[in-house]
């Protein structure tokens, strides 16, 4: 059969052109300027080589931001996957209200990070927030805390909101994966007298590897690129404890240092590519 005829190349044109014109060109144009002193105040642009990158990698304040970003990405990824997987197992079958609950758990994915951020800011409030109100109510008043204001808990508090927001997406991908597992395997395992744990370990998990791969990669990318939520919740504070790459990029961009900000953007881009690619490589190996 003639592939060129039944799958014509012009089908790809519309998204390709939009993607090139409105995403790739602006994105790479920006990245290319990371080797210049391009800024908002001065009309002249000078090529300055890798000066920005030297500045970034020799300054421990920026290294700290990279570390924060990694912590955020790793912790959100692990928890979203573990909790999401657990929820998927629980809601896969044999549960009357499962459809309703699935719908509920996926819902936060639909909400604007702007709204989520604003509401959780008040939920975390030390004086009026729901969390501290609740703790006092059940007699754990001693545990009330300035969740977003304390440097020890701030990053954790932000991570918790991100997990709340996106755990449903992981759950749904895992449910989809679970449903692709044929009942024959599970029945065979039952006949062999496998325990619940053994079934999970030797039958379910190996078949779930593609779903796990996808979830790991999507979560890591989302984690490394996080912006909206941190921007609204803490804007990097207190004392830079929740500062991540994208908030710094935004701040530098805001101060008018466009070249410097895109240098940070380039680092994030390369970094994310490396992480996503290595995970993909490692997981495909595992799958084989």
């Amino acid at each position, binding site marked *: *059969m003639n592939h060129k005829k*039944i*799958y*014509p190349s012009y*089908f*790809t044109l*519309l*998204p390709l052109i*939009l*993607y090139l*014109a*409105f*995403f*790739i*060109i*602006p*994105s790479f*144009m*920006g*990245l290319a300027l990371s080797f210049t002193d391009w800024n908002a105040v001065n009309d002249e642009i000078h090529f300055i080589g890798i000066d920005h990158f030297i500045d970034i990698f020799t300054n421990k304040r920026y290294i700290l931001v990279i570390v924060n970003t990694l912590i955020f990405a790793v912790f959100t990824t692990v928890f979203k996957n573990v909790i999401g997987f657990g*929820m998927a197992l*629980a809601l896969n079958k044999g*549960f009357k209200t499962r459809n309703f*609950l699935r*719908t509920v*758990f*996926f*819902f*936060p994915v*639909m909400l*604007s990070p*702007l*709204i*989520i951020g*604003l*509401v*959780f800011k*008040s*939920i975390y*409030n030390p004086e009026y927030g*729901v969390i501290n109100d609740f703790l006092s109510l059940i007699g754990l008043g001693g545990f009330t805390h300035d969740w977003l204001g304390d440097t020890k808990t701030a990053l954790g508090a932000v991570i918790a909101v991100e997990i*709340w927001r996106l755990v449903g997406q992981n759950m*749904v*991908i895992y*449910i*989809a994966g679970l*449903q*692709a597992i044929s009942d024959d395997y599970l029945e065979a395992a039952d006949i062999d007298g496998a325990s619940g744990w053994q079934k999970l370990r030797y039958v379910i998990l190996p078949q779930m590897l*593609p779903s796990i791969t*996808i979830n790991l990669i*999507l979560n890591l*990318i989302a984690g490394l*690129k996080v912006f*909206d939520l941190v921007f609204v919740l803490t804007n990097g504070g207190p004392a830079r404890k929740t500062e991540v790459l*994208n908030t710094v990029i935004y701040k530098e961009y805001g101060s008018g240092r466009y070249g410097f900000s895109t240098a940070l*953007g380039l680092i*994030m881009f390369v970094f994310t*590519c490396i992480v*996503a690619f290595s995970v993909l490589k490692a997981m495909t190996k595992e*799958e084989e």
Partner: protein
Amino acid sequence: MTKKHKIMKTVKAAVLWLFSVLVFIPLIIILLNSFKTQGESVSMRLSLPTEWVFSNYSQVMEQVDIFGAFMNSLVVSVSTVIIATVGGALCSYVLSRRKTRLHRGLYLFFLVGLVAPLNMVPAILVLQKFGLMDTRIGLILLYSALVTPFTIFLYYGFIGTVPREIDEAAIIDGCGCNSLFWRVVFPLLKPVTVTVVILNFMNAWNDFITPFYVMNTSTKMPMTTMVYSFFGQFQRSWNLVCVIMVMIITPIIIVYAFGQKYIIAGMTAGAVKG
């Protein structure tokens, strides 16, 4: 069923329902505070209003052109959904079916968009070149471009699960390439299409940063930007902000309610090797 099983099941149910309460709490906070007085809403507590101020809603409608903003959001979101979904489906279909090196490369090229950062200044320059600054079309095309990578990612995976034999049979029956896709293949993609529609709609609907850069005319601004109408650095009316939030969330709930049962089937795409 054994007794142990039953207990386990009840515990499981209890835990899950408890979790679902966690999902509802923020929504309830927003709803309750939208009926409070300005003074009472400052603390954004989870408590019933001491006095139900239903007039908050009419006050918002008087102060800002919420209907206009709603229409802007709707036009932009729906158009984005149509362009990105139709384009993404067609494109992924060809990329997935024709496994040449070029097509594989093109697919990977699209995936770069999952990672690459967008820079607003060059983006504005591009829109300018096309004469699209301060137009809804510009915003629509920008959003369409931004959601394209994930759209193609989802479609590509899903189309891989649709057997090629279907195409071949249709061709033998005398279908052209267009009718093959639209009449035979596209209906089979329903679950992933619904997923893509929902995700793209929500992305365009929820964005609260891009419009400030791309739009100049206040009457063309979307709903999310209205949140800012009621709080500035010096004064915030949380009750009115909550009213706006309710208005932003409601359409999302409606879209979601219609499409939710397909979400899981659609996400299957992600679980298939890309």
